[in-house]
């Protein structure tokens, strides 16, 4: 991907969110490699993990590349966490195109490169909270969705953005089982889509995003449960109607359109009050889930006056 790393070209991009975490917060690769060797080698690995886990919870240390790329929910490649890493190599992302349609000024089929051209690439270290009550911290690279939407020109009637994942049964073996009504679909309200936190990611740890994490381009909405952050996007539609979304269609009682991270609203089958950060070993402790996954200050005003128990 040969797009330019922009800097200071964001004249029309007010309220750009800045990371409070920096490069310095990322564990350097040699160090975490070292740590893995230690853990793998030590007989007292359990003791090691229990010492390490309180620190993990407090410092927002990004997860390792290995954990981020080997523990995934991407049902198009299978429903087990290890299935995407095992099967995603089948997906051919060369020549990837994204259909942009609906209420936009410049609809059409865009290559990823043309969509990203001239936009400033961001590095964002975000918490990632799965609806299954586990979490990670991921150092993403990508562009703000708003910049892409500005490029294609959102028309005044648009109220929502709908997204679709690739639907290629030959390259995505999970599509052969009817786990969900394929293709995978997600959506955001326009103001959520335009929020500076909302990212279209193309990389992790400065490397191209692996297929199992949603190559070549995926959404990242850090204050919502992970399934909202749709992967391997082939279609973006601007619409005036709330778009149908896959998990909501599958089970509307359990998965709402908004699906904001909210420790006070339980999933009908489990509590959302706590979470366990991936990578803490067998004696990993749970820690409290934060409202809007810790982004309350940034996004709470989007939902002012809304009953979040009704619009969960």
């Amino acid at each position, binding site marked *: 991907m040969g797009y330019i790393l922009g800097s200071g070209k964001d004249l029309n991009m007010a309220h750009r969110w800045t990371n409070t975490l920096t490069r310095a917060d990322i564990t350097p690769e040699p160090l975490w490699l070292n740590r893995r060797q230690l853990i793998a080698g030590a007989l007292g690995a359990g003791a090691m993990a229990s010492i390490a886990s309180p620190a993990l919870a407090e410092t927002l240390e990004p997860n390792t590349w290995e*954990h981020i790329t080997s523990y995934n929910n991407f049902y198009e490649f299978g429903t087990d966490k290890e299935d995407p890493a095992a099967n995603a190599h089948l997906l051919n992302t060369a020549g990837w195109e994204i259909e942009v349609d609906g209420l936009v000024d410049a609809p059409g089929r865009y290559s990823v490169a043309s969509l990203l051209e001239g936009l400033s690439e961001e590095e964002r270290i975000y918490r990632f909270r799965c609806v299954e009550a586990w979490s990670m911290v991921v150092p993403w690279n990508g562009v703000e969705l708003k910049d892409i939407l500005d490029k294609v020109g959102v028309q005044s009637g648009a109220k929502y953005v709908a997204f679709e994942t690739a639907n290629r049964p030959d390259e995505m073996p999970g599509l052969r089982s009817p786990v969900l009504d394929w293709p995978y679909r997600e959506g955001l309200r326009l103001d959520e889509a335009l929020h500076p936190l909302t990212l279209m990611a193309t990389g992790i740890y400065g490397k191209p995003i692996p297929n199992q994490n949603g190559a070549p381009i995926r959404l990242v909405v850090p204050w919502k449960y992970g399934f909202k952050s749709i992967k391997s996007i082939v279609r973006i539609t601007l619409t005036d109607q709330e778009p149908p979304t896959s998990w909501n269609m599958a089970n509307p009682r359990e998965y709402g359109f908004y699906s904001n991270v909210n420790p006070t609203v*339980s999933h009908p089958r489990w509590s959302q009050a706590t979470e366990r950060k*991936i990578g803490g070993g067998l004696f990993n402790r749970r820690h409290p889930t934060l409202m809007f996954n810790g982004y309350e200050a940034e996004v709470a005003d989007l939902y002012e006056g809304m009953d979040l128990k009704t619009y969960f």
Partner: protein
Amino acid sequence: MLIQWINTGLRKIPTWVLYLILLIPGLLTIAAGLTDNLGPEPINELEEELGEFALKLLILGLAVSPLLHFTRINLVRFRRAIGVMAFAYVMAHFLVWFLLDLQSLSHIWTEIAKRPYVTVGMAGFIAMIPLALTSNDLSVRRLGRFWRVLHRLTYLVAILAGLHFIMLSKGFDVEALAHMVVILAFLALRIGKWRRGLQSGVQRLREKILGRASA
């Protein structure tokens, strides 16, 4: 011939050997967990593996009598070992959930009461306790006919376990449903047998009454 050979072979195996064999997968999984070899989320992995193995043992237990009936392969001697080890795995599964996953004594009751899949799983676990406690020769002798009646709880346990698996899956989970299909199939085979038993019982009763009336 082959069946006879298999049965002769099976008779030579002491039942304690099966206890040891069935212990191996659990011990290997726990060892993998302790040595950081269960992937990025070892607590869930351990919980799932122990639960799934328990369910498979329950299904194997249900398979013993149809196997004898249809193929004459006799595993009846090993049924106690299968059942007791199924209970051991359910117990381990419960302990991992409670001690490592939930990590809270105060939450256990709300979880059991509020989460239907936990309620169903707990009901299955509790129903297994009297079965495990009476899986010894003394209880079989003491309880007499009631022992057989009591141990029909196994069918309920299997259904609850299968249901528990389905209820905790996300989306349309083929694996969980397949387990339930197998459980129901084994129970259906028995329903045929029970119905025949009931029919012959009714028949005998009718003959008795009719016989008496005509006499």
